[in-house]
């Protein structure tokens, strides 16, 4: 009936092993998840392409050197010279897609950073102060959430004028309430936790408790949301560009605009819609897969 001490020690070690280092544990879970690996590979390719675009692209994306081959109803298709063909402006499609990765990444990262940062600030204030500060900020966020995201972004971008900057701002603003609400709810749960009570019991100042104890423990859903929101930001950017709300300069190779421009020649040159679309799909897929895997690894409720 009674365990020997050695056995008891073994049990103790086993239970200790179960809750091994959270960081290492999360990483271990991620590594075993194939969708994480695929997603990560897609993101890595996407980022490398974006950064090394000048090295990878065979031609300049704005060089209209094949313009005289373009006829109404005809553009040169894929060939040895232009692997993905030539667009209606006589520019190399492959080079434009490669350079387009830069814009997608730029818009995604910048708008997400601004949006997430502002959201975290708002969420932290609401979660830390509670009371009327919380109510005021959250009602404001509710108002923003009441308008469908893309519609809100279209309105804002149209209001701010056609430029990359206004697209970024529009997408950032749409993201603010999402992050703010997420962080606030996660902080509210942490605020009631035992270690917060314990640190209050030794006189730690309120702001320090928020920044050092509550916030770091509430941030993991925000990280997950960040990866997923990056994917959405890329889609939104493409959508805005498709609707003609991107950069005012037509030579800027945005994937969304490239899709929009091929509408007229969809029957004669479907490859011009197919390849930018594929680029959007794969980059977005990468972030979604990683985001999903992260959520699975970080959320204790989904752990098997």
């Amino acid at each position, binding site marked *: *009936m009674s365990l020997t*001490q050695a056995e008891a020690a073994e049990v103790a070690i086993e239970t*200790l092993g179960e809750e091994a*280092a*959270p960081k290492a544990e999360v990483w271990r879970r991620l590594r075993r998840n194939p969708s994480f690996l695929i997603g990560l590979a897609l993101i890595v390719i996407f980022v490398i392409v974006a950064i090394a675009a000048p090295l990878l692209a065979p031609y300049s994306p704005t060089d209209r050197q094949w313009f005289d081959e373009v006829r109404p109803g005809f553009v040169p298709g894929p060939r040895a010279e232009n692997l993905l063909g030539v667009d209606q402006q006589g520019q190399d499609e492959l080079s434009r897609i490669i350079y387009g990765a830069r814009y997608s990444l730029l818009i995604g990262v910048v708008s997400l950073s601004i949006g997430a940062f502002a959201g975290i600030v708002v969420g932290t204030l609401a979660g830390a102060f509670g009371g009327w500060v919380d109510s005021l900020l959250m009602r404001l966020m509710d108002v923003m959430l009441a308008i469908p995201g893309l519609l809100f972004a279209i309105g804002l971008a149209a209001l701010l004028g056609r430029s990359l900057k206004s697209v970024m701002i529009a997408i950032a603003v749409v993201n603010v309430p999402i992050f703010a609400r997420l962080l606030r709810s996660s902080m509210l749960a942490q605020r009631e936790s035992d270690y917060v009570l*314990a640190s209050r019991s030794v*006189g730690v100042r309120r702001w320090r408790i928020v920044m050092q104890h509550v916030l*770091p*423990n509430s941030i993991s859903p925000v990280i997950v949301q960040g990866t997923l929101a990056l994917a959405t930001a890329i889609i939104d950017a493409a959508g805005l560009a498709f609707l003609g709300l991107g950069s005012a300069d037509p030579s800027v190779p945005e994937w969304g605009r490239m899709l929009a421009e091929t509408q007229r020649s969809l029957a004669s040159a479907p490859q011009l819609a197919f390849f930018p679309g594929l680029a959007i799909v794969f980059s977005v897929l990468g972030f979604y897969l990683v985001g999903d895997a992260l959520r699975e690894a970080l959320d204790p409720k989904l752990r098997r």
Partner: protein
Amino acid sequence: MSLLSVRDLEVVFSRRGRRPVRAVDGVSFDVRAGQTLGLVGESGCGKSVTSLAIMGLLPKRGVQVAGSVLLEGRQLLGLDDGELRDLRGRDIAMIFQDPLTSLNPVLTIGRQITEILERHFGTPKREARVEAARLLDMVGIPNAARRLDDYPHQFSGGMRQRVMIASALACQPKLLIADEPTTALDVTIQAQILELLKALVVDSQSALVLITHDLGVVAGLCENVHVMYSGRIVESATRRELFGRPRHPYTAGLLASVPRLDQERGTPLRPIAGSPRDTIPWASGCAFSPRCPNQIEPCLGAPPPLLPEHAASAVQSHDLRCVNPVPAPVAEQVTAARRPRAGVASATRATATTTESGDSPPRVRRTAKAATPVRPAKAAKPAKAAKPAKPAAPSKATKPQAPRKGAR
């Protein structure tokens, strides 16, 4: 002058649409410097709320605290947040029940201790680290200096409670409140932690208020004991008095429900009938009367006052809130009455020591759980609680054949 003086402390929780709940209902007690005081009672009797009220840690909304809490003559109730924060950790500190959740999982142990030193004394980082290592060493964490950079999950439960104790003692507070410090730990670790607390309290000369539902813990550690029931102190006495001559039917019932090492085999446990919910408001009589075997007419009507027990001497103070107390044991039994103390006191420690002391292992039929008998619901069916990690009496691998008789 006493270090801490609590007078008529009242805590009322009120929620819209519900009747207000009097969690603490006029509690008064004193703690002298260096004294160890036990606050005993079953779940929901208000002992934890009392401690949180003293610390000023109760939420503000929906809670009314009245009465007075004086620390060295300074009124704590009504201090503003900043003053209270300066006080907490430096003058009063608290140890919580569950060490597994009371440490921040994303901060290193070292950081969580140095934070307190920096906060209260402005200790520079490097010195704070040295001090933190010393504190961890003091509470018996091996390789203390190297473990400063470890995270809580890398420690076992007992070790984490040691860390909690180290951080509570970091600023050498005058008063330490320990709220069920051993409840989440298994019995052998409980004994170690209690020994540690005892030694540290003696060393540091700080006062200790130990809040527990475990009479064994009280017997091993506290000089004075207050027994609480339904928000009020019903009996308070020195440890020896209380265990030797319990007068309140509740205290007597608690003691009777503790299984003893020296009991005849198969003796049924005698739990207190009913549950803490079977209570009446103090205003309409004794809250314990619905469960009390000694209930008489005067129990209902007016709340019984807390009065000195008639045989109490100046040395052995003994206060009682009961109109029909259980009879004091006759002189012969008083000597025998040291038995419960010995039995209960060693209840926690016995488990830790019996394996070493080879001679005549006590024939225990006590389960690990039975050492914490205050919750009557559990005490009524102790058979379920045969913990596997029970090192007591390893030679007799007898299964506890605990009585299955329910409350009578």
